[in-house]
């Protein structure tokens, strides 16, 4: 088991290094930081621009490999370089990572738990009204792109606030600027800001997981070991939760790693639309401002978190499935 995990870990690390390097080279050759300085009025002399770009390791006149080596030796020491305005990428991203992390954890928590619960319940009550409703609902939600969903949620939120007459849900930001109040008041303020972004992140997850979990659960429900468990005197409820659900969760745990990538994209869209100052928002801004170092750092964080999710799903699978631990 330990050997299996170490092999996976080494493989993941190599993949992260290659993926990040590729992302850096692509960003360094496709984006053009020089353009940020050229459009200035009064125009800057080319020598000044070159000096500035050299200082930031962004000069496209330097060979790509040379820039890459400079960048990579910084990254090995934990320094992701400077943004094109000359600020530290590390500082900026450290602040933003927390925002994204909070959003993703909350979305993931609600999305996966509710999804699994909805799917499992729908399978137990196959062809009942709940089953039909959840199948139709998830099918519909899966056809809505996240950016449409987020905008529709904003419109609904504005409409809802108008109907109720007070501000119940906020459609922008993580908390009200300059908000003064006790712990519970500011917690409530944060929750009011959280509702819509969490929905926009969690609804697609619920849809995906519920469909998946439903099919897995249906496969397991017909299995002999459930009938045996009930036959030897176990209550149906205990047999379902202890035996059926656990077995049916194994593929969902594997699937978790695959959904994580799309979850990150979902978080990017959600952050940008709801005005949360997280990594996703910065990714879009940094591509628009030709900020090579920030883009590469975010690519590194993305690859790392996808790999972390894969490792986590390996661990989950091992915890749920005894066969993995033995072999």
């Amino acid at each position: 088991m330990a050997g299996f995990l170490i092999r996976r870990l080494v493989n993941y690390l190599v993949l992260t290094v290659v993926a990040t390097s590729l992302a850096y080279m692509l960003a360094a050759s496709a984006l053009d930081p020089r353009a940020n300085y050229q459009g200035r009025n009064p125009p800057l002399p080319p020598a000044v621009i070159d000096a500035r770009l050299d200082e930031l390791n962004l000069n496209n006149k330097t060979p790509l490999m040379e820039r890459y080596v400079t960048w990579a030796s910084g990254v090995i020491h934990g320094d992701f370089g400077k943004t094109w305005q000359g600020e530290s990428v590390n500082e900026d991203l450290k602040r933003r990572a927390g925002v994204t992390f909070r959003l993703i954890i909350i979305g993931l928590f609600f999305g996966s738990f509710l999804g699994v619960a909805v799917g499992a319940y729908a399978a137990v009550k196959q062809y009942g009204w709940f089953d039909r409703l959840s199948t139709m609902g998830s099918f519909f939600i899966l056809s809505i792109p996240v950016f449409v969903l987020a905008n529709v949620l904003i419109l609904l939120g504005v409409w809802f606030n108008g109907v109720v007459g007070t501000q119940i849900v906020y459609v922008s930001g993580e908390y009200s600027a300059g908000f003064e109040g006790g712990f519970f008041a500011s917690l409530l303020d944060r929750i009011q800001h959280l509702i819509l972004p969490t929905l926009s992140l969690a609804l697609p997850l619920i849809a995906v997981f519920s469909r998946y979990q439903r099919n897995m659960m249906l496969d397991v429900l017909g299995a002999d070991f459930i009938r045996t468990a009930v036959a030897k005197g176990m209550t149906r409820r205990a047999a379902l939760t202890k035996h059926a659900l656990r077995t049916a969760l194994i593929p969902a745990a594997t699937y978790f790693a695959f959904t994580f990538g799309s979850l990150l994209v979902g978080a990017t869209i959600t952050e940008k639309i709801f005005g949360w100052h997280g990594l996703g928002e910065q990714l879009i801004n940094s591509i628009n401002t030709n900020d090579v170092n920030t883009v590469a750092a975010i690519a590194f964080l993305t690859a790392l978190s996808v790999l972390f999710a894969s490792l986590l799903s390996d661990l989950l699978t091992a915890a749920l499935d005894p066969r993995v631990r033995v072999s």
Partner: protein
Amino acid sequence: MSIAEEEMAELAESPKAPSRLRVVAQRFFRMRQGQIGFVLLALMFVLAFFGPLLGHWSYTDKDFNAFLQPPSGTHWWGTTQTGADVYAITLRGMQKSLIVGLLVGVISTAIAAVVGAFAGYFLGWTDRILMWIVSLLLVLPSFLILAIMSPLFADGAWVLFVVMLALFMWMITSRIIRGMTVSLKEREFIRAAEFMGVSSSKIIFRHIIPNMSSLLIVDATLNVGAAILSETTLSYFGFGIQPPDVSLGSLIADGAKTATYAPWTFWFGAAVLVVLVLAVNLIGDSLRDAFDPTSRRRA
């Protein structure tokens, strides 16, 4: 192409027996969701490609007498902030999104079939290298890579965008196909072909890939839906289809800014996009059931 030929060949050889194509088609059209999906998609196609003939405006026209006007007789779906006709630009966006989606769906499935079949047939180092590339592409954040490359998609280079989009969508399918190939290559007819001295690539393209046609058709359909979602998402942020051309994504991005006081700028595009993806998904799901009736009990 080879799939259709295979079906035709079957048809010609045994005219009496019900062809698989007809059986599948019958099963497909007997399903309610298959019917709904097919009708919806057909309507969408007609609207996207014949609708512009009916309208009075082209997608490049600007009506300087009507900025942000609600739907009326002259502008059926209203106008945008710059005076563009929402009906005309939405249909233009639909065309683009449909074409991109179809191309990406077909290309990505073709890549998945070839890579998966080669990896599964040859195993050994071919398999190791190809599957390593698959894991690498799965780790690379596709949204980010495509967004970085977006400056290259300007000036009508949307074909490059299509290729790049397809390049990031085939990995999971190719893993499935690899697994199927590994078991398929032990079958007698593949063995027989090998012993008769048929070349490996011929076996792959003539015997292995056509044998997985049902999976590939279903997968191509579902990929079309996924491709439309990716394309519109990238275009929403300005990383996909570049102006002056329009996509449903870039239209919805513009519409969202004025949605609270001019709902027609947002809802028409959003509704068309959702219906489009819904129709494709319904068809894909029904096709899967039609090809594999045993899955019907579950789905």
